[in-house]
Every structure is written in C-alpha cells, then in structure tokens.
C-alpha cells in the first residue's frame, strides 16, 4: 500500500474512533444527573397499546396525588430539614412487557428515583417485578393483582391492588347473599367465560374456591377460556347457550366485553345475572352498549360511589384536575399508591431506598379512599383489601350493592327480561 493510502486509512480509522467516542459520550451524558433538591419517582404506565386507557387513568391518579403533595410544598425530609417537591419521571411502556421491564430498570438504575410506581395489568407487572430487588428500589403496582407476583419472596415489591382471586371469591360471595335473601334460587348453574390471561385464570379460581367452601349454592356447568381481541364470539356464545346455565360470568377486557355483549344481545340470550368480571360501569361501555349494560354487575377495587368523605373529595379533585369523572376503579389504587409512598418517605426521614422500603412494610395509610379506608401491605407486599360489587342501573346510574354496609342501592336479581 502506498503511504498516502495508509495515511487516508489512518485518518478514517481515527475519524471513526472519534465518532464512536462521541456517541458513547453522548449516551453517558444523556443519562440524567442526580438532582439534589427533589424527590424523583419513576412512573411506568402504558398510555399506548392495548392497556392504554386504564394506564392513562392510573397515571392521572398518581399525578393528582403528586400535585396535591407538591402544592403543600412537597414531602418533609427530616435529614434535609425541609420539604422537597416530587418530580415524576414518566415512561410509556406501550403495553409491551419487555419495554415495561426495560423502563422500570432504566428508572431504577440511572434516573436516581427513590421508588417506581408501575405495572398496569399482570403481564406488565410481572415483567417489572424482577427489577425492584435487583436494584434495591421499592416498587408499588396499582394495577397488577395476580398473587404470583407477590409470592416469590421479593423484598421490594408492593401492590395496592387486592388479589384477583379474592375478586372472584367476592363475586361468588355476593351471589350467595342473593340466594340467602331469596332473590335467587339454590343450585343455580353458572357458565364461565374467562379471558386467557392470569386475570381470567385467577378470577375463575376465586369463584371455584368459594363454591368449594359453600356447597349447594351453585354449580359451574361450563368454563372456558377465550383469546383476547376476538372478532366474533358466536361459537363461544353458542357453547354457553348449550350449557343452559342460569348465571353468566365472564372476565374480559373492555373491548371484548363490548364485542361479546353485543353479540349476546343480538342473539337474544338471557341469564338471571350477568357479569364481565371487573368491567361493567365503564363510561366507554355505556356509550357502546346503551341500555344493554343495565343490571350488569361487576366486582371492582373501588367505586366513586363509596360514601367516605375522602372519596367525595377525591372525586371533586380528580374532576377538576382531569376534566372528567373517575372511570371505574383505575385512578383510585394509583392515587393511594402515591399517597402511601409519600407517607413512607416522610416516615423514613431520608431518601434512602431501603429505609423507605422498611417504612412501606410498616406504614398504614389511614384515610385511604379504597374500601375499608386503610391501606396496609401484607407480608408478601400485597394489600388484602376488600372489593365492592356494583350494579349498573337504568339511565347510566350505578349502585354499590355489596358489601351491604357500603350499599347505595338494592340489587336487582334476577335481571328483568324486558329488553
């Protein structure tokens, strides 16, 4: 090779090396510097993709709590002798579990957050739950309720969503009270259509558990799982019809609830009681189904109809902050997750993550807006709260029908045949 081409070669190599170095430097610099005068909290929620809507609502709940705390100056940190404001570091995980895990890891490892709130839906929650212990950073999920996430002996994992099998259990329990009151007969047959996810499986298990403990009340004659996002449920509904059940319990996401119930109505089906699991009173469902949603009941983690004063205040604040009323239960568990975290940080007196985690284990949020009015994490990190059963009533009304001490209206059972 001639000397000039060697020269050019070296030039180019050096040039490329420069480019590489700059690229790496940029990446390093782009990593945020540790800001001393604020409390960084990571929030990883889906705002695009399949879980976009509930993710958005949960984000709003968290941000409302942050705003209220910051309006009061922030959280008092004893070791700094002053109040520090909260800074939210938000990532959209696009309803994708690998991105969810990646964003949680990113927040915990290099954004300098003291905790992460995230994981709407079980799959996203499970993916994220690997990171808290890895980076010794507390993590609270307001949207993932599967018990499997909390049964791995993790030390930094918490959840404000009560277990889903308890939801199924409470649903069956509610139906049992209707039998006791004489509104429903004994020995009725139940058909179950469960979405093929952790959620659906646990829901079904909860119902089975209650039935085993209370023989003679109900008989599950049909139970099958369906895939999310189907275009047509005719075949499945035909099987449900063939089962000749009295009660139809499904567990579905909103889109499938709408598609399935439309086809249910179109084929003229009827059951004495109908539920779609944790879906029922959603505004979008009302808009899509109109009067067909009447008398559908749902087991949910919170209702804006709860008669606690703190719930009333939350409803007003949320409406003012977002411009719309709280939809179903989504913002509530997130709102309280942020509040209990803030309380734990204050009790810890510093920004040390392990100290905050220790406080989370002990702390009790006393004016929680969730049913029961108190949040206390169980040994495995998950709260064992209670549920409310709500039933849709005509004219877009919703009533809490169970537990009886929180009820705002009477259960209508069996469902009128009218429509």
């Amino acid at each position, binding site marked *: 090779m001639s000397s000039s081409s060697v020269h050019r070669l070296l030039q180019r190599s050096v040039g490329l090396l420069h480019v590489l170095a700059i690229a790496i430097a940029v990446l390093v610099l782009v990593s945020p510097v540790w800001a001393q005068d604020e409390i960084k909290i990571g929030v990883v929620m889906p705002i695009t993709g399949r879980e976009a809507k509930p993710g958005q609502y949960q984000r709003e709940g968290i941000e409302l709590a942050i705003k209220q705390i910051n309006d009061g100056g922030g959280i008092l940190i004893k070791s700094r002798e002053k109040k520090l404001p909260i800074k939210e570091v938000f990532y959209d995980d696009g309803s994708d579990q690998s991105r969810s895990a990646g964003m949680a890891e990113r927040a915990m490892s*290099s954004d300098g957050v003291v905790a992460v709130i995230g994981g709407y839906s079980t799959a996203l929650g499970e993916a994220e739950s690997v990171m808290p212990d890895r980076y010794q950073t507390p993590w609270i999920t307001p949207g993932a309720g599967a018990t499997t996430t909390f049964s791995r002996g993790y030390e930094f994992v918490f959840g404000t969503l009560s277990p889903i099998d308890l939801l199924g259990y409470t649903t069956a329990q509610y139906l049992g009270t209707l039998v006791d009151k004489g509104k429903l007969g004994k020995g009725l047959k139940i058909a179950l259509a469960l979405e093929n996810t952790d959620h659906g499986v646990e829901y079904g298990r909860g119902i089975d558990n209650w039935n085993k403990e209370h023989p003679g009340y109900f008989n599950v004659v049909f139970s099958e799982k369906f895939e999310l996002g189907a275009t047509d449920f005719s075949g499945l509904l035909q099987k449900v019809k063939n089962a000749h059940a009295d009660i139809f319990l499904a567990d579905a996401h909103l889109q499938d609830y709408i598609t399935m119930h439309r086809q249910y109505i179109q084929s003229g089906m009827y059951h004495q009681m109908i539920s779609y699991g944790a879906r029922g009173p959603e505004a979008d469902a009302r808009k899509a189904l109109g009067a067909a949603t009447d008398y559908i009941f749902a087991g949910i983690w919170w209702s804006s109809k709860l008669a606690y004063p703190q719930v009333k205040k939350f409803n007003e604040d949320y409406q003012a902050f977002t411009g719309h009323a709280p939809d179903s239960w989504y913002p509530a568990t997130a709102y309280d997750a942020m509040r209990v975290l803030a309380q734990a940080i204050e009790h810890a007196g510093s920004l040390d993550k392990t100290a905050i985690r220790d406080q989370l284990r002990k702390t009790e949020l006393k004016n929680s807006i969730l049913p029961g009015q108190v949040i206390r994490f169980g040994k495995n990190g998950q709260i064992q709260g209670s549920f409310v059963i709500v039933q849709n009533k005509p004219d877009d009304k919703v009533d809490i029908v169970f537990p009886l001490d929180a009820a705002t209206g009477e259960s209508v059972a069996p469902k009128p045949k009218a429509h």
Partner: protein
Amino acid sequence: MGVTDGGNAGGSPVPPFVSVVVPLLLLTSLTAVPLVGPGPNIIRLLFVTLTLVTASVGWNLIGGFAGQISFGFAVFYGLGAYTTALSINGGIPPVIAFSLGAVVAAVASLLIGLPTFRLKGPYFAIATIGVSEAVRVVMMNVPFTGGASGYRIIDKTRFVQSHHYYTALALAALAVGISILVRRSKLGLALIAIREDQDAASDLGVNPFIAKLIVHALAAALAAAAGGVYARYSLFIDPDGVFAFRNGVAILLMPIIGGVGTIWGPVIGAFVYGLIHEEVVANFPQAHLLIFGSLLILIILFEPGGVVGLFQKFMRSIRARSSVGAHS
C-alpha cells in the same frame, strides 16, 4: 427482491485493512464499556442492542444472503427464550441452555422450511407469519409453560449485569463471525446465486433447497440464542411478549435499516434500532411512533440500501474523485 450486495465481493470500495481495523476497534470499545463505569442504564441499553445484533445478523443469513424474507422470526426468538428458561430452571448451566435453545430452534426451522420453501415470495412471507402466530397462540394455552401467565426463571444467584453484557457481546461477535464465514464460503456464493435467480442456480449444480435449509437453521439458532440470553436477563417471559408479531417485524427491520444482505448492515441496523428506538420512546412518550415511523420513511425514500448503502455511495464517490485526480 431489491437487496443490495455488500460486504467484500469483488471490486468493493472498502479497503480490506479498514474492514479489519474498524470491527476490531468496535469490539475493543464495546469490551471496555463496562470497565469505564457508564452506569447500569447504558450497559442495559447496549446489552439489549447486542442481543438484537445477534438476531438481526441471524435473520440476514436467510433473508439477506438467500433472499428468503421471513416475517416470522419471533418464533425462533421465543423458542430460544422458553427453552433457555425451562433449562435454567432445570438446573442446566446457562451456556448449555442457550445452545439447547439454538438446537430446538434449528429443528423447528427445518420443520418450517421443508414445507414452506417451495412457496413463492409473498406466500412464503405470509406463511411465516402464520406459523409464528399459531405457535404464539398455542403457547398461550399450554399449561406446562405457564400459558398466558408467562414463565419465570428462578435465579438465586446474585445479579451481575456485566456477566450478561459480556455474554451478549460474545454471542454477537460469534454471530458476526458466522456471518462472515458463511459469506466467504461456497455456501455463501451459492446463496447469492439462489437469491438472484433460484432456477439458474440449480442449473449450475447448486441444490437451493439444502442450502436454504442449512442457512435457515443457522439463522434460527442465532435468533434463539438471542432470545435465550434475553430471557436469562429479564427472568420473566410470556408468549405475548417473546412470540409477538411485532418482534418478528423488528428483527427484519434492523437489517433493512442497516443494509440488507451485507455483513455489517444488520449490525448497524441493530444499533440504530436498539439505541435510537429506546431513546425516542423514553423521551417522547406521546410521539415516539410518529418519530420512528418518519425515520423509517425517510430512510426508505432516500437510501433504501440502508446505512451501508449510504456508506458505499460515499466511498464510491471518493474513489471516483481520487481516480480522476490521478489521471489529471
């Protein structure tokens, strides 16, 4: 299928010395990264990118060299992830677990390739989508691997991020090495002949079917190893995640961005996708789809040969200028 040739076929404008120096520099810098302490996020980013490099280079073997465009590589990625996860939970050491995943995927690639290779162009592509999605749905229902709830690796060992990083780096280097070897071998020449005109190639004594099967198996093995390495890092996998159609699309996008059918195109494409995509998503939660989509459109409109194509044009124009200079 509109692919550009690159690498070191005769008359290439890239001097052979550069094509050795630059990769070595890259490898050295990447090896040095964890040692200069850039923080766990950078290492995570690079780790993910390196697994993407492996999958991308793997896909390029069959899609770029042989011109057989598969949209369904998620199936191999997923099979690798699950096989590795099951093996590690069964007490098998990680490297063997990755290899097991590679073997399973290679076998699957034979089962898939045998009936589908005789399909023409788009039919093949769509058949691969069908296979990938069918496997995803089946995995969503098989209770043994957790079904829709996903599967967990129980790992009692302490997490040392650099171990995972170096594993991914080694695998990526291996992938590139395999790619270079294939390209320079008789098999590589045969594949290019097949890609340009399959019937003419067979007239010349190449058996296209066997050649494609071999390279499909290699490609599947690499994609599976990438899936396995990823699974070991993230500890939780589920069918809607690893077998997602979106993954199959990403795996094919990367070589296209970088320059399909070349050696370094898939590597560059994986870096672009891995680093830029994540930064865009992280910093623009409301607009990342728009940004990334526009980026893709611009690449395609202005340089369909990808980054490597751009580079080659640049090199050619320099050479043209220097040869003009020599004559005057």
